[in-house]
């Protein structure tokens, strides 16, 4: 299987502690991987490193088998990798839903008409066309997450990095997100605490624990908890 992302001996430590050491991970084409771990174990930091937002202390990344030596070198792949932050309110860069959804296309130089056409399609696919003229910060948490996903998917990225996509959502909204994510055929790394959510998405689960990333056995229910 061809790989989308490879992590090679990645370590990260901040001035307080070492979060993880010498981590290896391979994300295959259209493969979905979930990362779990206790609070403060470094899951979100690891995702930011994979998204090219912070540099690892040691080790390097390969994107589509190309070695990435610095954050600057990452810019070439920005359109291929979409990142959803844990606090989704940080994702939004425009006040109205439709404006935010087309933001990345406009920033890439597409005309307003072309961008709007694509946005209409993606909003319809995610069943949120009725929200297009609403102010983002008036939406519920679940609606905001789906709008943020629309803003990522419109770029047709090859890899999705999702940090706690169902954080603080009710059961109904979680089901909606699961349905959407299951319908997307892309490589994904999902960081989450929700066991039921992860189980409904992928059998491939890694646990970040004691500075190390370990793959959990599919049948090892005890470890998943």
């Amino acid at each position, binding site marked *: 299987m061809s790989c989308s992302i490879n992590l090679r001996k990645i370590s990260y430590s901040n001035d307080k502690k070492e979060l993880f050491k010498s981590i290896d991970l391979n994300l295959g084409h259209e493969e979905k991987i979930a990362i779990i771990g206790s609070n403060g174990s470094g899951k979100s930091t690891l995702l*930011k490193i994979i*998204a*090219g*937002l912070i540099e690892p202390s040691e080790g390097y990344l390969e994107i589509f088998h190309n070695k990435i030596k610095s954050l600057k070198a990452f810019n070439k792949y*920005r*359109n291929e*990798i*979409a*990142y959803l*932050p844990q*606090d989704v*309110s*940080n*994702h*939004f*860069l*425009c*006040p*109205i839903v*439709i*404006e935010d959804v*087309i*933001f*990345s296309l*406009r*920033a*890439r130089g597409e005309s*307003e008409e072309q961008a*709007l056409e694509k946005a209409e399609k993606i909003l319809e696919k995610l069943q949120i066309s009725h929200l297009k003229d609403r*102010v983002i*910060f008036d939406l519920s948490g679940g609606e905001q997450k789906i709008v943020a996903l629309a*803003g990522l998917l419109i770029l047709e990225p090859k890899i999705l990095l999702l940090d706690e996509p169902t954080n603080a959502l009710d059961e109904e909204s979680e089901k909606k997100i699961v349905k959407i994510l299951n319908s997307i055929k892309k490589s994904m790394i999902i960081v989450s605490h929700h066991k039921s959510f992860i189980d409904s998405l992928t059998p491939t689960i890694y646990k970040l624990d004691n500075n190390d990333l370990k793959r959990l056995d599919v049948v090892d229910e005890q470890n998943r908890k």
Partner: protein
Amino acid sequence: MNKKESLTLLNSFCYSFLVAFSSLEILFLLPLCIALFFEKEHLKQIFKKLILVNFFIVVLVIFVSFQNIDEALTLFLRTNLILLFNISLFHKSKGYDIVRGFDALGFPAKVVSVFYFSLTLINFLTKDFIETKNTLKARGFKRDTSLFTYQTYGNIFGMIFIKALKKSEDMKYSMVSRGFEDRIYFLTSSTIGNMQKILFVSLVLVLGKVLYELFY
């Protein structure tokens, strides 16, 4: 181009400039009355806001009145005319239409972006401040003049400051990952409301009269 927002901003600038820098005239009430007429259902809200901001103006006017009562009265009238006009234009606004207006009027992209993100951060901090106030109530905090009260307030402001820094850092990550380069893209709209059109005409009339009196 967002014509509605840009015309509203233009009306606001024009009226404020006229009232601030020309001699007071009864004609200045015309645009104000038009604006109030279009917002007649929200008059209570508008005047409530005007009274609130007047607390600061009254203090200023009292200080000026010690030196010159006429000047203090003129200052009071001018500021209230400008405020009432602007409140009637923007009382329903969440601020984002003003950003749109700046963008449509051709302000530099960086200025518009800075204005937009400042607004977002202010909204976030306001929301956070209200939540913190509710938490204090829920946790049985009663303010008094003790050291504990001041310590608690100090801690809260410190925490809000740290949260604002964290939020800014996270937003920076979003900007990087979404390809933000100084500019926010707003949708264009060509509709102009009746209020904006009539206000603009009335302001042109007032401006014409002021200029006529100035030069003839």
